[in-house]
C-alpha cells in the first residue's frame, strides 16, 4: 500500500504547479487577444480586458468587431487571398524537392557532397539578400515580354516555392536516408528503373516526411509578410491587412483583436490537428 506522501510525490506536485504557472504566463497574452475580440468598442476602450474575465456575465459581449473587419476591412477577401497564395506555394515545390532529395540520397554522382553543402548553406541565407535583384529581374521581364509576375499570385508562388526548396530537400533527404537501402537495391536487381523506383517505392514510403514539410511550409507561407507584401500587393494577404489594422487602432482595439483572431484560426486548427507532423517537420528541419 502506498502512503499518502508517496502518492503525492508520484503526482509530481511541484513540477506540475511550476508548469501551470509557466503555461499561465505563456497563455496570458493570447487570452487578452481572444477576450478583446469579443468585446464592444466601448468596453475595449474603457476597461482592461482582464476585467472582463473577472465579471464575464456583466459584459456586453459582441461580435461587432468581426463584422467590421470581415466586411469593412475585407478580411474575408484577404482570407481567400491567403489561401490562394498558401496552397499552391505548398504543393508546387514538393515534387521538385522530392526528386532532388532522391538524387542526393540514392544515386552516386560526382560533387554530391558539395552540392548538398550548398543546399544546407542556402537554408540559412536571409531571403532579403536575394530580393533586390529578383524584383529588378521581374520588372525587366515585364518590360521586355509584357508578362508580369509582380503584384499577383504567380510571383509569390514562384518565390515561396524556390525559397522553400533548400529546407524541403534537406527534410526529405534526411527522411529518405532512413529508408531501407536493401529494398531499393533489390528493386534495381529486379530491373526497375530509377524513375520507377522513385514513384513506386520512394514516394509512397516518404509520405510522412512529405506531410511534415507540407504543414511546415503551409504555416510558413500563411504567416509570411515580406514576400506577400512585395509580390502580391494587389491581393492583400492577412498579415498585410492585419498590419494595416494595427495602424488604425484608433478605431478600437477590438477590431485589431478580431482581425488577428481570424488570421489565427487556420494556423491553430492546423497546429492542433496535425501537431505530430508539424513537430516532426520542425525536428527534421531544425537548421533553418
Amino acid at each position: 500500500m502506498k502512503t499518502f506522501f508517496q502518492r503525492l510525490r508520484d503526482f509530481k506536485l511541484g513540477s506540475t504547479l511550476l508548469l501551470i504557472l509557466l503555461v499561465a504566463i505563456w497563455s496570458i497574452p493570447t487570452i487578452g487577444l481572444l477576450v478583446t475580440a469579443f468585446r464592444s468598442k466601448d468596453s475595449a476602450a474603457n476597461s482592461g480586458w482582464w476585467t472582463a474575465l473577472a465579471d464575464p456575465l456583466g459584459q456586453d459581449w459582441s461580435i461587432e468587431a468581426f463584422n467590421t473587419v470581415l466586411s469593412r476591412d475585407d478580411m474575408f477577401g484577404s482570407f481567400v487571398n491567403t489561401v490562394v497564395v498558401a496552397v499552391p506555394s505548398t504543393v508546387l515545390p514538393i515534387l521538385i524537392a522530392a526528386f532532388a532529395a532522391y538524387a542526393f540520397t540514392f544515386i552516386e554522382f560526382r560533387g554530391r557532397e558539395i552540392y548538398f553543402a550548398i543546399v544546407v548553406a542556402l537554408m540559412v541565407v536571409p531571403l532579403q539578400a536575394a530580393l533586390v535583384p529578383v524584383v529588378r529581374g521581374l520588372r525587366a521581364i515585364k518590360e521586355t515580354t509584357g508578362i508580369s509576375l509582380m503584384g499577383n499570385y504567380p510571383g509569390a508562388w514562384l518565390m515561396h516555392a524556390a525559397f522553400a526548396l533548400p529546407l524541403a530537400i534537406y527534410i526529405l533527404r534526411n527522411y529518405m536516408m532512413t529508408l531501407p537501402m536493401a529494398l531499393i537495391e533489390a528493386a534495381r536487381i529486379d530491373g526497375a528503373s530509377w524513375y520507377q523506383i522513385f514513384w513506386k517505392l520512394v514516394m509512397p514510403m516518404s509520405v510522412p516526411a512529405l506531410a511534415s514539410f507540407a504543414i511546415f511550409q503551409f504555416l510558413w507561407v500563411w504567416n509570411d509578410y515580406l514576400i506577400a507584401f512585395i509580390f502580391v500587393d494587389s491581393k492583400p494577404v492577412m498579415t498585410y491587412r492585419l498590419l494595416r489594422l494595427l495602424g488604425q487602432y484608433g478605431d478600437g482595439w477590438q477590431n485589431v483583436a478580431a482581425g488577428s483572431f481570424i488570421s489565427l484560426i487556420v494556423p491553430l486548427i492546423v497546429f492542433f490537428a496535425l501537431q505530430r507532423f508539424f513537430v516532426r517537420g520542425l525536428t527534421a528541419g531544425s537548421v533553418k
Partner: protein
Amino acid sequence: MIADVLFGLMSIVLGIAASYGLYWGLDRLVNLTPEHIQKKIRALAYLLPAAVLLSLVLIVPLIQTFVYSFMNQAGKKWVGLDNYIELFTDPQFLSILFNNFLWVAIVPAFTVAAGLLVATLTNQVGPTREKIFKSLIFMPMSISFVSAATIWQFIYIDVPPGRPEIGLLNAIVRALGGEAQSWMLMTEFRLNSLLLMVIIIWLQTGFSMVLISSAIKGVPEETIEAARVDGANSVQLFWRIVLPQIWGTVMSVFVTTLITVMKIFDIVLAMTGGAFDTSVLGFQFYQEYFLNANVGAASAIVTILTLLIVPLMYIQIRTVRQQESLR
C-alpha cells in the same frame, strides 16, 4: 474572388501536371543516351529543375546583391566602398548593429534555457499532463510575427494620462504603486528592444522545448539508473548525466535560434516600425529599399547581414555532417 480560387486550383493542377511531365521528359532524355553516360547524368537531370530555380531566385541574386552594394542609390553607377563607409560612420547604423548584437546575445540563451526548463519539467509529470502543457507552450510557434505583435499589444499598450489602463503591464505597474510608461518609447538601456525580445522568446521557446524534449527522451535509462544507484540527487542527475548527453541538441537549438534572431524583421516592423532605436539589420534593409528606394545602401546592409550569418552557416554544415556520420 471565385475567379481567384479557380485560378489557384487551376494553377495547382497545371503546376503538378507540368512538373510531372518535366521529370518524365527528363528521364526519357537521359534514357536516350548510352548506358555509361546515363550513369553520370541521371542524378543531375533529377536535380536540374531544383538547381535552375535555386540559381535564378537565390544564388545569382545573392551575387548580384553583393555587386549592387558597391553601387549608388539607383543601383546604376559604381561608388566603390562608399555605401559601407557611409554606413559604418553613421551613428544610427552603429546603433542598429548594437541592437542586432543585443538580440543575438540575449534571445537564444533565454530561449534555450526556457526550453530546457519546460522540457525537463514536462518529462516528469506523465504523458497526459505532458501533452497538454507542451501544446500550450508550443502554440505560439504556429502564429505569425504580425499576429504575435497584435497579441502583445494587449500587454504593452499605453494610454493617454487619465484614461483607464487597457495594457496589462501598465495595469500591473500601477497596481504595484509605480507609474504607467510608454513602453515602446523607452530607449534607456534599450528597454523597448528588450520588450520586443520577450515576444520572440515567447514565440520560440516551444521550438526549443520540442527539440530538447525529444533529446531528453533519447537519453539511455541505464545511465540515469546507474547514477541513481550511486546516490546522485535529481539536480546532479540533470547537470552531470542528462545535460552532457543532450548537449549537441542544445547547441543546435541555440544556433538555429541565433540565425532566426539575426534575420529578425517582422516583429520590429509591426511593433515600432523601427523607430525609437529599435531598428535591426533586417528591418533597415526594408526601410532603405522600400521607403528610401536606395538600392546601394539596402544591398550593403543585407550583404553585411549575410556575411555575419556565414560563420553560422559553416557551423550548421558541420553539425549536419556530424549527425550524418553518427548514423
